[in-house]
Every structure is written in structure tokens, then in C-alpha cells.
């Protein structure tokens, strides 16, 4: 219960941040050339000034900017994100349709990066300054410097064009109708390359942090005690070192949640996945500012909820946090 109230307090503290972001981006978008009505008129193939004026009145765009901001925030409280003139649907339903691929992609990439980062970090730290460490650390540096979209393209060339093992893009095969387990397998095969592409840079970061934090913990007194009482090295690592060494890794998940969401914009564009990131890109190209603002809101919300979960995990790993709170 204590954990929940502590994390809940952090959650409450992020509400002003959320409001700040919305106000900031809303005001920023006022500088954008053209508004929703302009976009709609362009879609309709032009129209006279009277129609434009009427439409602006209908959408409340003739009001002063503070009044529009007030209206927008009040609609947000009722979870109404406005209307997307490009998609001809409420923004909320456009976003909800696009959310599952992104969440799936982020979860898969995060698990991939976390698991292998942990594994390689431990291997590197165990053989510090010997060849496994040098190899892993060098690979980590190279992965960190690799532009994700480029890695994605090269992976398509190798695995989809030459070897023809995996599909080059899309979320599922739309040529055939599949159900149940076959559909899941189909989606999974479409997500392999995007997951690797998005996860690569995070794998590099995680393994570096894990290695450093393992080296730090391995030097602590209680580890020497564990060794002195005759535990073998594997036991020392799995039972004693890992739990403490994991703390910085968990912190990093929260810090990197936003970066990962940003990275999925690029990766979804490379693999033409119909996700939130691709929607963000499309709404910039199509000047669909209502949708863009909605995406800003939803992505901030996503980052905040990831951090909430991270707080819970953190408290579970390190009981001292709740004891002092």
C-alpha cells in the first residue's frame, strides 16, 4: 500500500507537467502556417471566404487564443481530443486505432534490449578487460552509433530481399485472412525486424549501464562476504549482485521511455507499421495539427504511465525506498 501511495504521489506531481506540455505545444501550434479549416478547404478543393468563416466559427477558431486554449483544456478533461479533418474521425479514435502496434513494438523492443543488455552486461563485467568484455563493449559502441533507420533498411535488404526470411514491412499479411495463433505468428514475424531495429540502441545503452553497475556492486563488502562464506561465483552473481545492480537499469527504463517513443516514429516509417509514430509523421506532413496535438498528449501520458510502473518496480526491488518515504 505504501508503495502505491508513494508512486501515486509521483503520479499526481506529473499532472502539472502534463498541463504545462499541453499549454506549451498548443501555443506553439498557433504559430503554424494554416489551421484546421485551411487544411479542410484544401481537402475539399477550395472554397469561398464565407464558408471558411462559417467553418472557423463552427470549430471555435474565431475566438481569442486564451479562449481557444480554455476550450481545448476543458474538452481534454472530458477526454475529447477534437476532430481530425484529414481522417474524418475524432482524433481519439484515430489514435486508439494506431496505439496497439506501437505498444506492442515498444514492449518487444524494451524486453529485447533489457534482457540482452542484462546478459551481455553481466558477461562483460565478469570478464572485465578480457576479450569477451572488449568484444561486447566495442559492439555496444557501434550499436550506439548506428542510425536506427539505416540499420532497419539494411536489415530489410539482407533478411527480406536476399534471404527472404522475413516480410519487409507492414503489421500483418493482408492478402490472406488468418485467425488465432496463426495471426499472432504472422504479426510476430512482421515485428521481428522492427523490434531489433528499435531495440539496438537501447541494447547498447543497457549493456553499458549494466556492466558499470555490476562492476560497482562487485566491489562492495557484502559481495566479499558472500564469496568468503564459500558461495560459487554464479550464486554470488544471481542471488546477491544482480538485484542491486538492476536498480540503475530500471531507472533507465523510465528515462528512456520518451526516447523510445520518439524512435518508433522513425522505425514505424521504415517498416510502414500503422502505429502512433507513423501517425505523428503523417500528421506533420498533412498539417493535421489537431491530431498532432492529440499525439503529444497521448505520448506524454504514455511516458508518465511507464514512469509510474517503473516507480512500482523500483520500490519492489529496493525496499529501502518505501521504508524512508
Amino acid at each position, binding site marked *: 500500500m505504501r508503495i502505491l501511495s508513494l508512486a501515486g504521489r509521483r503520479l499526481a506531481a*506529473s499532472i*502539472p*507537467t*502534463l498541463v*504545462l*506540455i499541453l499549454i*506549451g*505545444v498548443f501555443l*506553439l*501550434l498557433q*504559430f*503554424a*502556417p494554416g489551421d484546421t479549416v485551411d487544411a479542410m478547404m484544401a481537402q475539399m478543393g477550395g472554397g469561398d471566404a464565407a464558408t471558411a468563416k462559417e467553418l472557423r466559427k463552427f470549430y471555435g477558431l474565431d475566438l481569442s487564443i486564451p479562449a481557444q486554449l480554455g476550450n481545448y483544456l476543458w474538452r481534454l478533461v472530458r477526454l475529447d481530443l477534437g476532430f481530425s479533418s484529414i481522417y474524418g474521425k475524432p482524433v481519439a479514435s484515430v489514435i486508439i486505432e494506431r496505439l496497439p502496434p506501437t505498444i506492442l513494438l515498444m514492449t518487444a523492443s524494451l524486453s529485447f534490449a533489457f534482457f540482452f543488455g542484462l546478459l551481455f552486461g553481466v558477461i562483460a563485467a565478469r570478464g*572485465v*578487460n578480457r576479450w569477451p568484455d572488449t568484444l561486447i563493449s566495442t559492439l555496444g*559502441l*557501434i550499436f*550506439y*552509433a*548506428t*542510425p*536506427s*533507420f*539505416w*540499420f532497419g*533498411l*539494411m536489415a*530489410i*535488404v539482407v533478411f527480406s*530481399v536476399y534471404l527472404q526470411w522475413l516480410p519487409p514491412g507492414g503489421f500483418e499479411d493482408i492478402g490472406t485472412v488468418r485467425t488465432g495463433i496463426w495471426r499472432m505468428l504472422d504479426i510476430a514475424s512482421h515485428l521481428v525486424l522492427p523490434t531489433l531495429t528499435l531495440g539496438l540502441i537501447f541494447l547498447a545503452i543497457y549493456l553499458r549501464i549494466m556492466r*558499470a553497475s555490476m*562492476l*560497482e556492486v562487485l566491489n562492495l563488502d557484502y559481495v566479499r562476504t558472500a564469496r568468503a562464506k564459500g558461495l560459487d561465483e554464479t550464486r554470488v552473481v544471481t542471488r546477491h549482485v544482480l538485484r542491486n545492480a538492476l536498480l540503475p537499469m530500471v531507472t533507465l527504463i523510465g*528515462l528512456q521511455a*520518451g*526516447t*523510445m*517513443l*520518439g*524512435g518508433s*516514429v*522513425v522505425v514505424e*516509417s521504415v517498416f510502414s507499421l500503422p502505429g502512433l509514430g507513423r501517425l*505523428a*509523421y503523417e500528421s*506533420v*506532413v498533412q*498539417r493535421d*495539427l489537431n491530431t*498532432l496535438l492529440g*499525439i*503529444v498528449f497521448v*505520448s*506524454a501520458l504514455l*511516458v*508518465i504511465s511507464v514512469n509510474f510502473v517503473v516507480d512500482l518496480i523500483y520500490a519492489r526491488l529496493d525496499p529501502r525506498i518505501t521504508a524512508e518515504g
Partner: protein
Amino acid sequence: MDAVKRYFRSPAAVAGLILLVIVIAMAISAGWFYPRDPLALAGRPLVWPFSNPRFLLGTDNSGRDIAAQIFYGARISLLIGGVATAIAILIGILVGAFAGYYGGWVDNVLMRITEAFQTLPNFVLLLVLVAVFGSTLTTVTIAVGVVSWPAPARLTRAEFLSLRNREFVQAGRTLGMKNIQLIFREILPNALPPVIVYASVVMAVAILLESALAFLRLSDPNVASWGNLIGLGRDVLRVQWYVSAIPGIAILVTVLAVSLVGQGLNDALNPRLKGR
């Protein structure tokens, strides 16, 4: 000069420095090797690398010399990376210094703003900025700088928090120095080294951000940039994959060089933490 000696003792740091010097040399010599406009048509489209001595790295979809674009791209990447990093570090230092020095409500307000910037995915904010202000070289550079300042700000603030009550600061205060003088003349020089080292991370990320933006065709299309070229090569990826592959390697090498130099500096300046 111990730090310099320590720097050159690390093979990784030296390798990074060599790579960085090569990239800088490419940027400087671009006009000398390729006096023509890199975006002008040079020959037949889609010539494979090493097949025609006139175009060492081949030509792209519309017959422009890839090697020339790589050389001029080095200029753009270093320019955007460098200027955006300078902007980010400058904003970061100002915000972090005031927040850390004054504490209280100043700290509260500034950190709330920093948090807001960190909560919003930086690439999404970059998209918003480009959507609003357009994608010329100047706006893209400023936008990349504007989304990259929170981390240096937090670092500077942490340094200021640990330094602001040291004896030399109290001595300065007793001498009647003003707050601004204390911040910029006394504390900042001591807080600067880790922030400068961190600048290498900011620069690496800035180069990657710009190339991703250019790949999505949301950066300036009128300059020869590596990201633009990768985006173009995507249209002919199935067969002429080299159009995308070559500029990608250039980005990889540049970012790798910047990170290696940064890490080398870090190890040289903090020898106790070496190997961490």
C-alpha cells in the same frame, strides 16, 4: 598535462580522435576535391561503386555523385551537430545554473519546465517544431538544439547544488560579490568540465536526430546531407542498396568518433572512474 597523456594512452580514444580528424578533414576539403555543386547532375544514374573511376562511390537515383555528397554531408552533419550542441549546452547551463544556485521556487519552476521537456518524446517535439517553423537548415539546427537541453541542465544543476555552499563561494560572498558574479565567475568554471564532456553525448544524439529527420524528408532538402541521401536511396533499396548503405556508414563513423572522443576525455579527466 597529465590528462593529455592519459588520453593518448587509451587506444579507443586515439582511434576516435583519428576518425574525427578524418571527418573534419573531409568537411574542410569538400570544396577542393569536388568544386562542383554536389547536388548537380554528374553522370548516368545508379552507377555502382568502384565501377567507374570518375565516381568512386557511384551515383544516386538521379545521377549525382555519391562521394561528393558524402564530403559535403560531413559539413552539414558537423555544422548541425556542433551548433545544435552549443545551443543545447548554453540553454542547459543557464537553466541548470540558476536552478541549482537559487534553489527554492526558481528551482521548482525551472525543473518543472525541464521535466515537461523530458516527458515529451524529443523526436515528437522535433516534429512539432518542424511542422510549425518549417525545415530550413537554420530552423532544423535550432530545433535540434532546443529539444536537447534538459540533460545538460540537470547535470549543471547537480554540479551547482554540490558547489554552491563550498568555502570558496562563501568567501566570495563575504567579499561582497553579486550572485551573478558568483554564478558565472566562481562556480561555473568548476562545474563546467563534466558538462563539456557530456557535450559529446549531446552532439552524437544531435547528429542522429538530424539524420533521422532528413531521412523522413523533413529536413532541408536543398543541402547535401547524409540523411537525405539515405532517404533517396530507399526508393531503390531492393537492388541499388549501396545508395543508402554508404551515407549510413558515414553517420555511424562520425557518431562513433564523437562518442569515443567524449569517453576518452571523460576517462582522462576522471582517472579514478576509468573502465566504468
